[in-house]
């Protein structure tokens, strides 16, 4: 049994009560190893976003178990008192649109997280710059987000997700606004970072271009997950 970066067992989520209740997640089971990137695909309304929100600790599941980075965060109830700190320190988020803070420059967009965690500004910025350089956007460190291309913005958002070295990154359609070439670059970066930082990454996607790159894929249908082997195309 692998030391799970992410382990989900029997996760369920019900919205509403009584006759109007909707079971968005019925029986979700997933395992993602540290350093692994898995795809999560499924049709609209299948429960992908609900699963991400549960994993991101922004909505509470109805039942089941979630372990992130070896720490049980949910077991028929939250096991972590400070979910905000959990999101800040243990989960990285990459969104469909980069959602960078428009009034902070590139460096501070990335450095904000360690600053929020109480790191000194200089240390936070140094760490941000290191990541930006690794992601090949170090030369845009002082630029404003509006001055970056879509691909550069997405790299900055990946740097922001990684900066606190979280054991888990949740990426929600990270390549949707990008063309094929840039989409593959983003996936390659995610794979590199997963390997380099031993981060477990779940990529929610509809993007046919990148689906073949995953070694493992979880299909979610009607609130249930099914695992299948991916092609694992080398980028």
């Amino acid at each position, binding site marked *: 049994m692998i030391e799970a970066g992410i382990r989900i067992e029997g996760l369920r989520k019900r919205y509403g009560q009584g006759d109007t209740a909707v079971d968005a997640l019925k029986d979700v089971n997933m395992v993602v190893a540290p350093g692994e990137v898995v795809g999560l695909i499924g049709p609209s309304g299948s429960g*992908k*976003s*609900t699963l*991400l*929100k549960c994993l*991101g600790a*922004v*909505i509470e599941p109805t039942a089941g178990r979630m372990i992130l980075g070896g720490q049980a965060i949910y077991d028929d109830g939250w096991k972590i008192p400070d979910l*905000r*700190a*959990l*999101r*800040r*320190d243990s989960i990285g*988020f990459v*969104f*469909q649109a980069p*959602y960078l*803070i*428009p*009034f*902070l420059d590139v460096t*501070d967009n990335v450095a*904000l*997280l360690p*600053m*929020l*965690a109480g790191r000194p*500004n200089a240390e936070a910025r140094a760490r941000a710059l290191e990541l930006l350089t690794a992601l090949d956007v170090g030369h845009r460190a002082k630029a*404003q987000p509006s001055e970056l291309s879509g691909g550069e913005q997405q790299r900055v958002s990946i740097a*922001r997700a990684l900066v606190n070295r979280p054991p888990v990154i949740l990426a*929600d*359609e990270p390549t949707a606004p990008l063309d094929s070439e840039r989409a593959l670059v983003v996936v390659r970066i995610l794979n590199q970072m997963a390997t380099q930082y031993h981060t477990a990454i779940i990529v929610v996607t509809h993007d046919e271009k990148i689906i073949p790159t995953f070694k493992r894929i979880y299909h979610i249908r009607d609130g249930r997950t099914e695992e299948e082997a991916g092609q694992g195309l080398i980028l």
Partner: protein
Amino acid sequence: MISLAGRDILHSWGKFVLTGIGLGLLIGVTLSMAGIYRGMVDDAQALLDNSGADLWVVQQDTQGPYAESSSLRDDVVRSVLGLPGVVRAANVTYLTMQVRLSQGQGKVREGHEVRAMIVGFEPGQPGEPGYLVAGRHITRSHYEAVADVRTGFALGDRIRIRRHDYTVVGLTQRMVSSGGDPMVFIPLKDAQEAQFLKDNDAILNDRARTAANPALNRPGVPGLLEAIQASQAANHNVNAVLVQVRPGVPAESVAEPIRRWKHLEAYTRAQMEEILVAKLIATSARQIAMFLVILAVVSAAIVAFIIYTMTLGKIREIAVLKLIGTRNRIIAGMILQQALGLGLIGFIVGKVAATLWAPIFPKYVLLEPGDAVRGLAAVMLICALASTLAIRAALKVDPAAAIGG
């Protein structure tokens, strides 16, 4: 930790400064309103200071000479002078009227009219203008005047008061009535005539009426009619007697026997200040206070709407901030600091604007540093309260909104 509010302000400083300028002009109006009230109080105090009196003796049962009309015989001053503790006493008259320039030497054109308080005084006595900024004091018994610079008159100008022209021989400053009208000083006798003497037609009619009255024009009493007519045309009234008391003597101890034995009213400086500030300008003060309240509410509403709108424009960023673990107090602090920043910019703009436009006002606008400090505190408080609406909206943002679906 970096200042999110500061960065946001710097990022969109143009929008922020323009908004601050708009708010600042409103704050400038508010500060000016407070300055107008202070100016009214200061005008009242200047009036009392310039009179040089410790006591105002006026007609019984009146609150004259500034708040109500008062009429005394001009020989009352002699009996007042005889009272223990009195150093000097002098008759004065006050009459507010339109004064017209009949022959100009300065910038003001002939025919120019100004509303002024005509003060009749006795040279060298209480009521005389304390100092001059140009020219000399009145030395002739008639037809010379000293005018406040705010009348716009210049030395050598000829001004029309009732039936006579007066030459402006001196200029003074900050000599205004409690209503803010500039003063024009003329000799007492001229002022009595200006205030009490009727026009020629009225005098002729009165004489005819008196001559036609058999009770006043008795055939067997030679000289009676002439005596009555002379009495009718004579001016022996003044509005008040200004009294200076000996140093160390309480003004009230002089006022008391005047009230008791002379059948007159006497007010001390404190009582006169009470009449001027608490009674004469009370309605105006309430009017201004009402304006201030409305302006404060309008300012608060504007700040609230601006900050609320700015916050709504950042809902997605706030959702992301919350999702990545930003504490509510940091987000609330960001909005609060922006509101305070807006208030600070607005206050600075308002203070500068009020300082620039205060001298243009026709009446004195006194911008006191204390009012500015109180204004700043009020602006900050209003901005802090106004930001609560936006903070409430921001804290309601669901971090899940940052994740699609």
